[in-house]
């Protein structure tokens, strides 16, 4: 497979994971922006483990979600009770704190970072496996009591409290899951790019994830999964003169979608409708198959 195509697929998976990491806490009504913070932790864990400690790549990939989750757990102890917008800025603060600490730690490269990170041995299989496992986790959370509690929390925290879910625990769990997804994204990023350095992780990464989640659909997981490859891939195929205006176009689409379609392009209604259509199509296909089989056996 060609290197540009492999890079495209790798970054698509990275941004899908980051999009899901933003989506999960948003289900509780929290704009949790510490994705890049956990991504940095996961990336440096993977980079340091494989270069300085000579770990196998598989160990780094398996360990990165736990590292990301741990890094998300620590501030979640304080942020779980913070109101929605406060969480956004406080979690954003974590990026700057961690990046500044990394810049001053010489043993992980300081401002220069870590280079010569080995590439993935079986990139397609690894990407597919990571995406499948992460997608299954997000789907199961969405369709579980935790997901329903999170949704209730986003509509009305007071009503949610009356029904029993522990609001702080739900918020914290979502933040930890978000950290796990971001940590994995960080590890994949490190193995794709081959190097990590502090300036690579900043607010600008969030500016790529925001359009993906809020244009794609911020109330379902499918919006991110569909739109991340599209928004990442379009600039690669368009002429440079048009690609130069990418930020303006994404910003304008983001503004229009927020006003006209606040749920995003792929809304919950659309997903429900697609599911109903798929089920009815499947049932009709099954009925047609059985009918044909009965006619064939009757003959």
């Amino acid at each position, binding site marked *: 497979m060609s290197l540009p195509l492999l890079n495209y697929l790798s970054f698509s998976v990275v941004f899908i994971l980051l999009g899901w990491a933003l989506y999960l806490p948003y289900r509780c*009504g929290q*704009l949790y922006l510490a994705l890049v913070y956990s991504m940095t932790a996961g990336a440096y864990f993977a980079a340091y483990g494989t270069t300085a400690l000579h770990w196998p790549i598989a160990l780094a990939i398996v360990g990165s979600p736990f590292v990301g989750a741990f890094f998300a757990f620590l*501030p979640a*102890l*304080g*942020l779980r*009770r*913070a*109101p*929605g*917008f*406060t969480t*956004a*800025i*406080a979690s*954003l*603060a*974590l990026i*700057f*704190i961690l990046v*500044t*600490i990394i*810049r*001053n730690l010489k043993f992980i490269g300081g401002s220069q970072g870590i280079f010569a990170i080995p590439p993935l041995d079986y990139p397609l299989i690894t990407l597919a496996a990571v995406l499948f496992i992460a997608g299954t986790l997000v789907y199961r959370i969405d369709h579980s009591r935790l997901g329903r509690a999170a949704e209730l929390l986003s509509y009305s925290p007071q009503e949610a409290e009356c029904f029993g879910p522990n609001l702080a625990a739900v918020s914290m769990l979502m933040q930890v899951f978000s950290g796990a997804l971001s940590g994995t994204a960080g590890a994949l990023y490190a193995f794709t790019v081959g190097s990590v350095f502090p300036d690579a992780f900043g*607010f600008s990464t969030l*500016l790529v994830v*925001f*359009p993906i989640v*809020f244009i794609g659909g911020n109330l379902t997981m499918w919006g991110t999964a569909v739109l991340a490859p599209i928004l990442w891939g379009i600039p690669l195929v368009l002429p440079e003169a048009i690609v*130069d*205006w990418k*930020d*303006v176009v*994404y*910003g*304008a689409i*983001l*503004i229009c979608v*927020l*006003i006209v379609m*606040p749920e995003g392009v792929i809304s919950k209604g659309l997903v429900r409708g697609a599911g109903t259509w798929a089920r009815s199509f499947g049932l009709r296909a099954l009925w047609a198959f059985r009918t044909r089989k009965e006619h064939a056996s009757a003959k």
Partner: protein
Amino acid sequence: MEALIAQLVNGLAIGSLYALLVTGFNLLLLVSAVVPYAYTHIVVIGMYTAWFVLQLTGGSLVWAVPSAVVVTTVVSMLTEPLFRPLAKKGAINQTFVMSIGIAMILTHVMARHLHHGIPVAFPENVSGRMAAFQFGVIAVSRGQIFVFFGTVVAVAAFMFLLYHTMIGKSFRAIAQSPFVAKLIGIPTVKMGIMSYGIAGVLGGVSAVFVAMALGTAYPALGDALGLKVIATVLFAGLGNLNGGLACGLILGIAESLTTGYLPGMWSNALAFGMIMVTVMFRPQGLFGTRI
């Protein structure tokens, strides 16, 4: 001791800038219920406008300052219709995301179409970095004096508007309860638009002071200032005007002392570290939330 006083002087100048930016930010937060992350990007557009007018007029501040104020006011008021549908629903998180979209567009315009994205440097008569007073290590530049006292005058004028005029009374009424304000006949939409205009005027004045303090403008400055301003607002308490002024000064002094006494680039980490600690123990901010 002299070094400490020198850092305190620097800190007061930077802190007064933050205080002025936070005031404009809080005005929009209180009256229009939006999180205007793009506010500092509009300020940087004002700085670029001032620079272009200075180049065209041969360094005339008489033309540059009003031009910056007019441009920031117009751009600010142009964003009002975009925020109105979300502000009506009380979707504060989404107003933050919307303002990020606006910031992306403004940053692109500055990076590609204003001086080809190359940072601009303001002439000496604007940046005023020559020392007006010197006592050993302590040097107080003209720019720092203008910034500090100019901020005091601007904030005093704004507070006069807020507490001694009908417009200010309307703003306070809407900030307290938009529903009741509408019931008693205050034109909330018109006042909302006016708040964007006044925030734009404050932004234009801020643009001039930031140009004096930093002496340069570049496309990424909007993001750098925006994050600091939002952090200060959160540190003080969302919508708390007096708290915002105090915390702006505190942050400026803390940043200046950090830069002067700690090795490495810890000033950003310090600013955001203060936010994290405050939010963890006091989510409503140091002085309490007003929204």
